[in-house]
């Protein structure tokens, strides 16, 4: 209990801006990943990276404000992301079964 209350103090040793910048960087890496990769799974992983950047940020804010709701949100995100993974991978598998590839570049039949 004692230790728990010290956590914010420990975390605050690093300025909040650092967390913000770090997770922003992480988020941007995720975006770049989404933009540059053609493999559906890698893109999906990049999206997960973005979500994790958000998680980190939430955790940091939560600690700085000594407000647990942010951390609770992190759990929600994790749970929902897991569901998303399940569905997403299923879709990817389905596509792989049909066309033996998961390159999003060639999935452009629907256009104009």
């Amino acid at each position, binding site marked *: 209990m004692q230790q728990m209350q010290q956590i914010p103090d420990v975390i605050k040793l690093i300025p909040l801006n650092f967390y913000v910048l770090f997770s922003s960087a992480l988020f941007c890496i995720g975006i770049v990943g*989404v933009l540059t990769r053609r493999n559906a799974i890698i893109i999906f992983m990049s999206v997960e990276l973005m979500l994790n950047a958000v998680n980190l940020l939430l955790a940091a804010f939560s600690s700085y404000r000594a407000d647990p709701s942010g951390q609770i949100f992190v759990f929600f995100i994790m749970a929902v992301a897991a569901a998303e993974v399940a569905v997403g991978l299923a879709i990817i598998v389905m596509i792989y079964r049909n066309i033996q590839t998961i390159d999003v570049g060639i999935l*452009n039949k629907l256009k*104009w």
Partner: protein
Amino acid sequence: MSLVTLIPLFPLIGFLINGIGFRHVPKSLVGIIGSAAALASFACALSLFIGFSGQPEVTHLFDWITVGKLNISMSFQIDQLSLLMLLIITGVGSLIHIYSVGYMHHDEGFGKFFAFLNLFLFFMLLLVLGSNFVVMFIGWEGVGLCSYLLIGFWNKNSNYGNAARKAFIMNRIGDLGFLLGIFLIINHFGSVEFADVFGKIAEGDYESGDKTLLYITLLLFVGAMGKSAQIPLYTWLPDAMAGPTPVSALIHAATMVTAGIYMIIRANIMYSLSPETLEIVGWVGAATAVLAASIGLFQNDIKKVLAYSTVSQLGYMFMGLGVMAYSSSFFHVMTHAFFKALLFLGAGSVIHAMSDEQDIRFMGGLRKKLPVTFITFLIATIAISGIPPFAGFFSKDEILAHVYEHNKLMWVVALAGSVMTSFYMFRLLFLTFFGEFRGTHEQEHHLHESPITMTLPLMLLAVLSAIGGFFNLPHIFNGHASLAEFMSPLFAHTHSTAHEADASTEIMLMVISVAAALIAAAFAYFLYIIKKSVPAADGQESGLKKVIYNKYYVDELYDKIFVTPITVLSNFFHSVIEFLVIDLIVEGIGKGVKILSGEARLLQNGTTGYYIFAMVISIAVILAWSLRAFLF
């Protein structure tokens, strides 16, 4: 129902019976109904004339158009002018109706013809009976319509149809002027009733040369130009000869075309205060008189000659108006109605006998076969040429005397016209009735005097043409100038500046004009009886003669100036402005959207990476914009 109302009612009823019962009324009845309607009107007019008190009487029928303070009522006015016109119209009209019974007997459109004639009478009577400008305008346009219908009576021939259209449209040009004049009158006087308008002017608030009156009179004169075939709107009248001959006699000689003169006399109080307009009226009349007469010199169609003669005589009447000799002009209207109707009917009789041949080059020597026609035609010719003591002499010389007093130059022009008139009339007479017959054998075989229904009107009109002049015998012949006397209340408020010529001048003028007419007649005698010359066939004239024969190419000129440009403009508007400009803009917007759409859809190229890239860029831009305060 008063007598006044009955006058136009009879022809209307006649029209309805013959018109609606078209093809159902027995042919024998058609003519009787039509003529009876005209005669009944004549009887009414006569009894009104006899019982006339000397004071104008207005009969109000009903309010026609009421807007705000303006009330245009359907009402009739009886005064000296309208009574005289009524008598001429119904009198001459009745004779022509009777004549038509014989003339049109074999035509399949017999019933239609009488219906139209009655309708014409109805509108003509409205024209002269109306107590305000708008009712006059009803008649004005109505007679134009009947003229249109009757010119195009034989509607299978599209040339006749074109002539009819030309007449209607040219009349309409004049009508527009009339209409605008009416608007100006309404705006200025707030009423269209003759009594109100002229009453206000009679109060004396108007100087001579008043601008408003100038414009009103000019606009009304434009209307008169159209209806009475004056330069520049005269070309329809010769073409109007396409109609049956009785129509030419009734409408295009005796009655309708004099509507312009009637109108100016009616509005004399305004004209007298607009000397500029009068000057224009006079000179337009003079120009028309001489121009038309000159064209008449070389025409070969019997009706065309008479038509140009009509135009020319109308010119004299306007000349008279221009010098404020109103009653003289009217006197000429009256005598002209007699002898010109007679001439046309005589021509009709000739045409009837000649199996519809109208070209005088193929006539000749008809006097033996058509004695009645010949004698009556001769009387009319003498009358129109201004040889005493027949009607035309008195009326024309009255006008000439006034013109002489007003302007010597105009008198010279008028005299020239009168010489030409005498020449072409005698030319016509000689070519038609004297010499050898030049037509086909078949025609010769058919030659016969017309039936009594046709010759009776001829004889009656011949009598009138002979003695008509005595209705207004001038003082120098110990006459009473009874017509002028009778009409004088009409000019009570007119401040006439014309002064009477003294007796010696008048006699001198008469002698000159009679001499000129006789010389012209003699010249014609020399040419066509002694030298037996016959006008050349079409296309063989040369020089000035060719120009005149082709009517100075005025029709062609109008064609070039008005018809062709409008046709071209119409096609231009339709194919260029309409489809290449306006529609192209409208359609262009539609097409533009479609093209834009075709381009815009290419944004949607189907690649996920590209979509996300676009989103990221957009996000970046949006963030940059919303954070501009922090960034810059």
